[in-house]
Each structure stands twice: as C-alpha cells, then as structure tokens.
C-alpha cells in the first residue's frame, strides 16, 4: 500500500479516536455517559441509526453478495420502511411518555421484573455475539493487506475499538456516526464512479447492466413463495418486517440512538429518514458489487479472492493442482470475455437469448472451477490440520479496492471501513453496557451505590463486553458470509423479544407469568427449528424465524393467560 494511503488511513482513524476522547472529556455522570445529552436533531438521529446498522460488514459482505448471488439481497430490507412507520405510530410515543433509559425498563412497568431481566438477557446474548462479528469483519482487511493471521488482526482491531468506546460514551458515538455516514456515502459513490470508468471503452454502463441481467445477476425481486429460499419478497415483507420491528423497536443499540433525540418529533423524523433512504442505499452498495462483477468479466478475476489462502496453497504440494485450475479459469474467462464482446458488438445492449445461454454456461463452468479450488483448500486443511476459510465472498470488494483503486482512494475507503466498524461496535458496546448496568446490575444486583460507582461500572461493563465480543470474533470465520451471520444470530433471538413487546403493547390482559413462560417456550421452539434446519431435517430460511418466534410467543402467552384466568376463576368460584 502506498504511503499516502497509510497517511490518510491513520489520519482519519486518529481524528475519530481524538474526537471521541474530546467529546468524553466532560462526562461525569452515568446518564450522560450512557444516554448522551438528549439534544440530537432528526438528521443526526437518522444518520446515526443508519450508521449503527451499516457497519464495515455492509461494505465488505454486501458487494460480495451481489458478486456471488446477484441483487436479490436488496429484498432483505423491504420490510424496513414498514417497520419504521409502525414504530413511529405505536412504540416511540410510549418510550417517550415513560421516559425510559432502556427498552426493557418498560417491560417491568408493564409486566414484572423477571420479564424485564429475561428480555435484557436475550438482548445481551444476541448483541454480544453480533458485536463479535462486527469486530471480526474489518480485521479481514488487515489480514489480507499485511499477511498477518486473522487472529492477530482481530485482537488488534478489537482492542482499539474497546479503548475508543470506553473513553467515548453515547454522545460521541452519535456525533461521530453522522460524519462517518457522510464519508461512507461519498466514498462508495466515488468507488462506483471509478468502477464504471474502468469498464472497457466499447462497453457502456447500459451494456454492462444488460449483460449482468442476462447472467441472472439482476434478480432484485423474486415473487416465488418458497420457505427455503433465503430472499424472496414474501420472506422480506413478512419475516423482514418482523426482524426490523424487533431490531429497531427492541434492540437497545438502536433504541439508544433514537432516544437521544431532542423530542419525539425529531426521533420520528429520524426513523422515517432511515425508512426512506435505507433501501436505496443498500441497493446502491449491491450495485457496486454488481459492477465489480462486471469489471471482472473484462479483467482476469483471481481463482480465490483471499490471497493469504492462495499463498499457503501455492507453497504446498497442492500448488500444481491449484495452478492447473487457475489456467482452466483463465481459459473460461477469455472465452466468456470474447462471447460478451461479440454479443454487445452484434446487438448492443439487446442481448439475444442464445448469447445469454452461452454466458450462463460459461458462468456455470467458472463456478465449477471455483468450487474445485474451495475443495482444494478443504483438502489442504485436512492434510495440514489448518482452518483456512474456503469461502471468499467477503474478500471480493476489498481485493478489488486494493488492486484497482487509485492511490489516496484506497486509504480513504479503508478508513471508511475502519471507522464504520468502530462506530457500530462502539454503539453496540455502549448499548450492552447500558443494559447490563441499568437493567441488571443497578436494578437487581447492587442497588444502593453512588452515581460515580455506576459510571465506573458502565465503563467496566463496556470493557467486559468488548472482551466477550472479541472472544466470539475469534470463531466468526466459521460463517460463510458475515452479514448473513449477523442477521442469522439476530433472527434466532429477535422473534421472541418482539413477541414480548407485541404482547406488552397490544394485549393488555396478559400478565407477567404468562409472557415469561411464553418467551422461554417460544425461544426454545425457535432454537429447535434453527437446529433442525442446520441438521437438514427441515428446510426453513432464517428470516422466517423472526415471524415464527413472535407469533409463537404471542399465541402461547394468550393461551397461558386464558388458562391462568380460567384457573383463577375456578378458584374464586370454589372459594365463594
């Protein structure tokens, strides 16, 4: 990497860390540290909410998703605007009216302490795991760039984030995120322009999009109802809406962002802003991945995008086999490139079905060769007792950035990825610490200490959660795709949490005991379904877990409550 890129990277990271420390200098009480000054305007809330959700993973994984599977992942966000509107109507007014610190405080008011504690615990569990993946994602970059092991880079990034978060506090997190989102959006826009500029002279953007479509990559909306299909419009609108209702309505890392608003109006506008811009933003990031895919139709794409893995294979006895696959791939890519040029020359962007069939057949051949390279990595793992990740979709975008973007822009994009990761993790650790202190430590364990004690404990819990997240991050490479891993972990827990809140808001007759048991049973059912799917006994896309978890908890709560009430009535009659 050029020295100028290093300069840009370290300047931006240094400025962000410095800004965090500067913002934290006046913090002397727990409320300010955990909740900020409650003076944010709607655009800061909107950008902060978007920045919390869009971490480094968004940058690394999403373009890779588009490269490997096309644009279908855009559907994942279709439920988000609907969820924003529902939250603005029903949830925000209640949180503001009760002036809660965390979302779970409301549950004690509505049900009882055990339900509040259980829900806070479920949140801590899933967010603690997700925070691990958020730390792991940017460490991939350093690993690829410097040739260090993934473990070393994970620990390095994790410690940097923990240090920044402990000194930061909620106010600094929100303020920093606003600036970072602006840098992120402009960085991605510039990257897109550079990729389009790098297409061959005789291939227009329209030609490239048309070819991508004929290769099956522009499959944005899928109307086929299929429970095992990860992304279609039905799982998105039903499962996705439930996921986002739960994420934005009950996940403290998001609730904390919009509760820092100056007023209910500012918070509502912030969420609607997110609802309007999130889907186009994700579509654009996927489109960048699509353009990277098209770029590699005209330029040789590596057989495996993780160069660290490639180096190890090439130094082993498997090198001749790997090089043989490389030359096979080059031959297929050359044929594909010629076929694309011929088709465009013949019909412009009106690609014929016959040409499309040729593209698809060559693409299938390419996939087969890539699969063989993955099998080779697995063989290497077995022979050498290593754990190299055969999946490389998360490396697609970053390897393109490193190799093809001009000096200066490489540093800028890396800084964007680092700062996005840091701010998201900061937000998560901040929320984890808040919930640990407010909902568990201060509420149930140590109730009568001074504010200075709780401030100290808030910082200590931030460090503790950082260490837990870091430990989980060390095992994150087991997942095929990072952004999916975060969403899968969320989907396992969000349904039940949302079910608890749905009952709290809409079924006033249901009491604490019924919802507590329903939440435990509901979570057990969701985990069972997830395990059955993993064992391939059933086939169920993970987005459905959100809806199933929520519906099951609501139904069981109603059932148990009716049972409880009829038993109570019976007792009353017997007594009379």
């Amino acid at each position, binding site marked *: 990497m050029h020295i100028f890129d290093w300069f840009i990277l370290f300047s931006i990271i240094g400025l962000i860390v410095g800004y965090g420390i500067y913002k934290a200098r006046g913090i002397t009480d727990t409320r300010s540290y955990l909740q900020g000054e409650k003076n944010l305007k709607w655009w800061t809330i909107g950008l902060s909410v978007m920045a919390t959700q869009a971490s480094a993973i968004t940058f690394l994984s999403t373009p890779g998703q588009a490269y490997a599977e096309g644009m279908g992942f*855009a559907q994942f966000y*279709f439920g988000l*605007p*609907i969820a*924003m*509107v529902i939250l*603005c*109507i*029903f949830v925000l*007014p*209640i949180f503001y*009216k009760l002036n809660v610190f965390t979302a779970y405080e409301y549950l004690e*008011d*509505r049900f009882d302490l055990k339900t509040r504690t259980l829900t806070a615990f479920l949140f801590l569990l899933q967010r603690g795991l997700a925070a691990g993946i958020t730390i792991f994602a940017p460490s991939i970059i350093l690993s690829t760039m410097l040739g260090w092991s993934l473990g070393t880079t994970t620990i390095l990034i994790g410690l940097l984030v923990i240090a920044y978060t402990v000194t930061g506090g909620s106010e600094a997190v929100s303020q920093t995120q606003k600036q970072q989102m602006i840098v992120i959006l402009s960085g991605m826009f510039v990257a897109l322009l550079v990729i389009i500029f790098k297409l061959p002279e005789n291939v227009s953007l329209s030609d490239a*999009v*048309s070819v*991508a*479509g*004929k290769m*099956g990559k*522009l*499959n*944005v*909306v*899928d*109307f086929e109802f299929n429970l095992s299909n990860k992304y279609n*419009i039905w799982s998105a609108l039903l499962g996705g809406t439930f996921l986002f209702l739960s994420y934005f309505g009950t996940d403290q890392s998001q609730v904390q962002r919009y509760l820092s608003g100056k007023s209910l109006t500012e918070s*509502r506008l912030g969420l*609607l802003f997110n*609802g*309007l811009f999130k*889907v*186009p933003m994700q*579509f654009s990031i996927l489109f960048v991945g699509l353009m990277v895919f098209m770029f590699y139709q005209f330029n040789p794409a590596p057989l495996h995008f993780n160069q660290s893995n490639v180096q190890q294979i090439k130094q082993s006895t498997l090198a001749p086999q790997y090089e043989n696959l490389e030359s096979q791939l080059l031959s297929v890519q050359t044929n594909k490139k010629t076929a694309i040029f011929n088709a465009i020359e013949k019909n412009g962007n009106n690609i014929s079905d016959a040409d499309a069939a040729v593209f698809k057949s060559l693409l299938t051949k390419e996939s087969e060769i890539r699969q063989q390279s993955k099998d080779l990595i697995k063989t290497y793992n077995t022979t050498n007792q290593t754990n190299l990740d055969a999946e490389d979709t998360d490396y697609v975008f970053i390897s393109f950035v490193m190799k093809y973007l001009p000096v200066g822009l490489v540093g800028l994009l890396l800084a964007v990825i680092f700062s996005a990761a840091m701010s998201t993790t900061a937000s998560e650790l901040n929320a984890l610490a808040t919930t640990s202190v407010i909902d568990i430590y201060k509420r149930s364990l140590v109730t009568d200490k001074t504010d200075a004690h709780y401030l100290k404990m808030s910082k200590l819990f931030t460090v503790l959660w950082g260490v837990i997240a870091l430990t989980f991050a060390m095992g994150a490479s087991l997942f095929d795709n990072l952004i999916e891993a975060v969403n899968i972990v969320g989907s396992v827990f969000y349904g039940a949490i949302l079910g608890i809140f749905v009952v709290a*808001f809409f079924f*006033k007759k249901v*009491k604490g005991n019924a919802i507590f048991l329903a939440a435990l049973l509901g979570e057990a059912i969701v985990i069972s379904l997830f395990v059955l799917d993993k064992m391939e006994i059933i086939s169920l896309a993970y987005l459905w877990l959100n809806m199933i978890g929520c519906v099951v908890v609501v139904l069981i709560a109603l059932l148990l409550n009716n049972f409880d009430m009829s038993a109570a009535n019976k007792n009353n009659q017997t007594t009379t």
Partner: protein
Amino acid sequence: MENDIEKPPVFKNWSTLYWIVIILHIGLITVFTLITKAYS
C-alpha cells in the same frame, strides 16, 4: 397492579407523512420488479 398504557394519539399531521413513505416504498419495489423483468 398492571399499568394501563394510553392509546396512541391520533396523528393527523403524521399520517400523510407515513403514507408518503409507504407509497414511495411501493414505488421503489415496483421499479425493482420492472428492472428484474426487463433484464431477466
């Protein structure tokens, strides 16, 4: 005793904004559907 939560107030000014968000979203999904159909 269980605390009663007040019913959400009627949002006369807000409902238009909510509808705008939903209608724009439906428009966006329609555009995506047309893109899918046109380029498949």
